[in-house]
């Protein structure tokens, strides 16, 4: 019986987000809130491991009240329990303050059911750092295993996990003691369409919701904006590129102009000509 906790976040869909060009802030109303795409893979992996070894999958998020929707999405994927910490005091947290708050919540979850494995996504598409997962692992003194693209085995008797960590040109096989924390790559699995029973359960599901007052021994100075060592001092629009020369004429004119441009850099094509340079 394993207890696996996936950490998930609700994020604005940055693909279609509109920015206010005057203030360089994002127009939240322009972007629907979605479950961070990388975290869907974290939940899916937790669900697969539970199906393989038995146990319980919990998901945990820190966010504003509408983030309940992201938890329901995880229930659709197959999670059993959802926990949310929400409080104004958490607002403005950077990765250090986020990992602190999530760690406090994980400690509380572990009081009722000890945790064997924590799974995070590779990164969030709004924070975009990949730092929160390893941060949680350090705070709980668990080995962090990042870039995981396969879980080979979880052995709850021998108390170890064996995973593949992606390298630039292959992978490494690593064994770690349990409990440990994995940050998973998106290629680790494919998230299938939700089943009808899961969707029905998700629609009615009420997560456990905690505020700062519910978390024992919490140091309020480490929360939110106050507890964040990094601050955003300024934002600006990325420089607009200048624009290039458009080639003109018929298609074959354009192709021959382009050919001239390329042949002016002939030395680059030595490899393409197949032979060694004379």
């Amino acid at each position, binding site marked *: 019986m394993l207890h696996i906790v996936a950490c998930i976040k609700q994020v604005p869909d940055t693909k279609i987000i509109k920015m206010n060009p005057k203030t360089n802030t994002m127009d939240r109303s322009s972007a629907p809130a979605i479950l961070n795409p990388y975290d869907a893979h974290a939940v899916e992996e937790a669900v697969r491991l539970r199906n393989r070894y038995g146990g319980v999958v919990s998901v945990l998020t820190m966010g504003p009240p509408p983030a309940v929707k992201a938890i329901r999405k995880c229930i659709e994927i197959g999670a059993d329990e959802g926990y949310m910490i929400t409080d104004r005091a958490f607002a403005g947290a950077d990765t250090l303050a986020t990992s602190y708050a999530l760690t406090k919540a994980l400690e509380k979850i572990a009081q009722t059911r000890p945790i064997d494995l924590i799974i995070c996504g590779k990164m969030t598409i709004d924070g975009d750092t990949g730092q929160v997962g390893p*941060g949680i692992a350090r705070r709980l003194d668990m080995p962090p295993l990042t870039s995981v693209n396969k879980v080979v085995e979880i052995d709850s008797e021998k108390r170890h996990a064996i995973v593949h960590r992606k390298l630039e*040109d292959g992978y490494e096989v690593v064994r770690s003691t349990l409990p440990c924390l994995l940050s998973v790559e998106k290629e680790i699995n494919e998230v299938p369409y939700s089943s009808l029973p899961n969707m029905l359960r998700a629609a009615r599901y009420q997560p456990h919701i905690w505020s700062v007052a519910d978390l024992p021994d919490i140091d309020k100075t480490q929360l939110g904006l106050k507890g964040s060592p990094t601050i955003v001092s300024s934002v600006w629009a990325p420089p607009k590129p200048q624009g290039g020369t458009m080639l003109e004429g018929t298609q074959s004119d354009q192709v021959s102009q382009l050919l001239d441009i390329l042949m002016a850099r002939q030395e680059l094509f030595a490899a393409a000509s197949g032979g060694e340079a004379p």
Partner: protein
Amino acid sequence: MNFEDYRGVWVFIEEKDGAIAPVSLELLGAGRQLADKRKTELAGVLIGENISALAETAFEYGADKVYVYDAPIYRFYRTETYMRAMLACVEKHKPEILLYGATSTGKDLASAVATDLPTGLTADTTQLDVEEDTGLLLASRPAFGGNIMATILCKKYRPQMATVRPKVMKALPRKIGASGVVVEECIPLKEEDIRTKVLEIVRSTTRHIRIDEADIIVAGGKGLGSPAGFKVVQQLAEALGAAVGASRDVVEAGWIGHHHQVGQTGVTVTPKIYFAIGISGAIQHLVGMQNSGLIIAVNKDPAAPIFQACHYGIVGDALTIVPMLTEAFKSALGRKEEADAGKV
């Protein structure tokens, strides 16, 4: 915390296949500028097994000093061992600024070190500057999917740390024979206390062309319509001896593997020539290729943003233009070979 005690700019030196990883050389270049502005020294931190000789290379690329942790326990990168070494080094020698490459190893190490110290860590920085008088690091990075740039500061803690994207900073020209100070360090670590073991390293046998190392990249986008359409890109790449790149949408559609993805969530590339074919030029794609030497775009929509970011553009149907170019190039190259052969 007394800020006066924290001095110097440091770079975590990543080793790869017996050499210093290119990103670490780039960071020595960027770090040199910061150190000069602050009138302090630039140091590298080198961790591994049998890596001491690499200190020489670090000096040749701008370091004044290198701290070396050389022991069998560091043979493979593991968060626990490397983190212990880095934490010990920081606590002992107190740098003002500490930079890591935003590689999987650099990010993993930096996240752990930042949590334990604790201090602030800015991820995936693309611009670095320092305030001359205060030493405040100005670390800037794209945010919200590249829609804005943000400058991030860490005012209350030292060291100030950042991971920096590969291929955005410039390494200094190598100064053969340059020397510096080697500081050998050692901390007591016992293998039996380390909770992770690397059991095996598996290198992929099909050695794909690394797009981050290619001189020429032909990249295709969703505009090619289908895997069959994408072939025109692969054929041009073959004729040019180029690597094949792709937009995220193409990778997600499964036309080509994720190793080929260029952009914010893919690879940052700076080839000498970059072809963007049937790629719209979304900001997340542009951040990954805009520093290429020569950018050529083919797109049927004259208003596509890629035309703002290219050097030469052709408006038209890639499915007819690209095969024409491939043929024209092949015959031009044939003529050139004949001419070359004539010379010999």
